[in-house]
């Protein structure tokens, strides 16, 4: 497994694609909860989250620059001390296990819920998906990135065509009056959006693999804006075509909407792109999980843990949730709290600690690692 960033670099274009697929794959499907809370102003929490995600990207960029060439799991002990750093690192690895297994379960729920692979045994779908993602992990981030370079612009094109086709059916007056929900409700509605967009914390695992930190920072911001626009577009289309009531009860909104948009065949294009997008998201999460575990345990050879981790993910994705209802209920009740801690609070705290430790107290952060210029070479 090509875990050590040395020669395995991706460029900003690739990172943008990776992050768009990481964030958009699930967040676009589950906008119902936001519309349920905020109503026709459902696009506002998404816009708000895009702003706060820009802050999270800066935090990850700042921390990454302080510890060039090291991922979150590696610099945690340097910031918090060895014992606390390793403990929080373990927390992140477990969070990634939860996240990856849940995304695999979500993909199965989507495939079955939208009538794709209805007669295929679940275990077969999961095994094929995890085998494909494990192959990506074993080949390294560059291979995952290059594979997606072939697809991600095509995926974006299909989504844009889908949005354009929807325009004729939209009734924009459904969005009025703007801001009726009030700030507190918009904040409440943004909880689930914050959880999904907070997955940008993975930038702290991916920046060491980017050609330069600056490029990674710009790529992440572009991805954040594009995802923001895609989600706002989906919410607006959903509310203006289906209305608030139906939108707030609709799972897999883009697929449901596709039935109302002509030509009806667009649904099959959506299906194809979502299968690729789920592979991308699972591969990326599994890569971060495997790399994180390897870094936490300070392994010299990471290949040996790819298969055991893949088996754990297969088993957990089958055992975590009894059915799709249990999955969505559990995610709605647990994910916002978990995400708040791991995606927002801890990075925020690390940022404050880093500023106090290295800027205000002027402590030397060299720790013997390479500076960015050397590291790039």
């Amino acid at each position, binding site marked *: 497994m090509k875990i050590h960033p040395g020669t395995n670099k991706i460029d900003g274009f690739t990172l943008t694609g990776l992050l768009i697929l990481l964030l958009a794959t699930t967040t676009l499907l589950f906008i119902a909860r936001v519309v349920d809370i905020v109503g026709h102003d459902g696009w506002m929490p998404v816009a708000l989250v895009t702003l706060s995600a820009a802050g999270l990207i800066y935090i990850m960029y700042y921390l990454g620059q302080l510890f060039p060439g090291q991922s979150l799991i590696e610099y945690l002990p340097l910031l918090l001390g060895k014992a606390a750093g390793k403990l929080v690192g373990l927390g992140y690895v477990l969070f990634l296990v939860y996240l990856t297994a849940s995304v695999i379960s979500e993909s199965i729920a989507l495939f079955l819920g939208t009538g794709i692979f209805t007669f295929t045994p679940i275990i077969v779908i999961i095994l094929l998906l995890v085998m494909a993602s494990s192959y990506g992990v074993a080949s390294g981030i560059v291979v995952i990135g290059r594979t997606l370079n072939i697809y991600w612009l095509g995926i974006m094109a299909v989504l844009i065509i889908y949005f354009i086709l929807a325009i004729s059916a939209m009734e924009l007056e459904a969005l009025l009056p703007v801001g009726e929900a009030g700030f*507190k409700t918009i904040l409440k509605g943004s909880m689930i959006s914050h959880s999904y967009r907070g997955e940008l914390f993975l930038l702290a695992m991916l920046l060491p693999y980017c050609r330069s930190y600056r490029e990674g920072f710009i790529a992440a911001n572009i991805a954040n804006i594009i995802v923001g626009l895609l989600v706002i577009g989906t919410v607006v289309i959903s509310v203006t075509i289906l209305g608030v009531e139906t939108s707030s009860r609709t799972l897999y909104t883009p697929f449901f909407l596709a039935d109302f948009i002509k030509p009806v065949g667009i649904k099959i294009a959506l299906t194809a792109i979502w299968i690729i997008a789920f592979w991308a998201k699972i591969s990326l999460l599994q890569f971060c999980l495997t790399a994180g575990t390897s870094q936490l345990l300070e392994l010299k050879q990471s290949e040996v843990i790819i298969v055991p981790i893949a088996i754990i993910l297969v088993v957990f994705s089958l055992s975590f949730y009894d059915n799709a209802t249990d999955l969505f209920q559990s995610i709605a009740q647990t994910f916002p709290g978990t995400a*708040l801690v791991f995606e927002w609070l801890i990075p925020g705290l690390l940022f404050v600690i880093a500023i106090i430790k290295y800027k205000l107290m002027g402590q030397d952060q060299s720790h013997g690692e390479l500076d960015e210029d050397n590291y790039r070479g």
Partner: protein
Amino acid sequence: MLYLLGLMFIALMAWYLPGLIRRKMWRETAAFSGLLLIAMVYSFGLLRGQRLPDLVDVLEMVFKPVTKYLEQLLT
């Protein structure tokens, strides 16, 4: 099915462990064995239909109240 699963784990151990032990990569050996043990326990549990305590149970116990508190705070 249980036997097939058992065979798969034996095959995996036979594939990875001798090389790791020969090269004296003890840390990797421990990591591989530990992770495989977790995989074995949970996959046998799943096949036998036994509900073992898992990560979601822990997360629900710890973070469900956090989500609830946040929702109440913003209501």
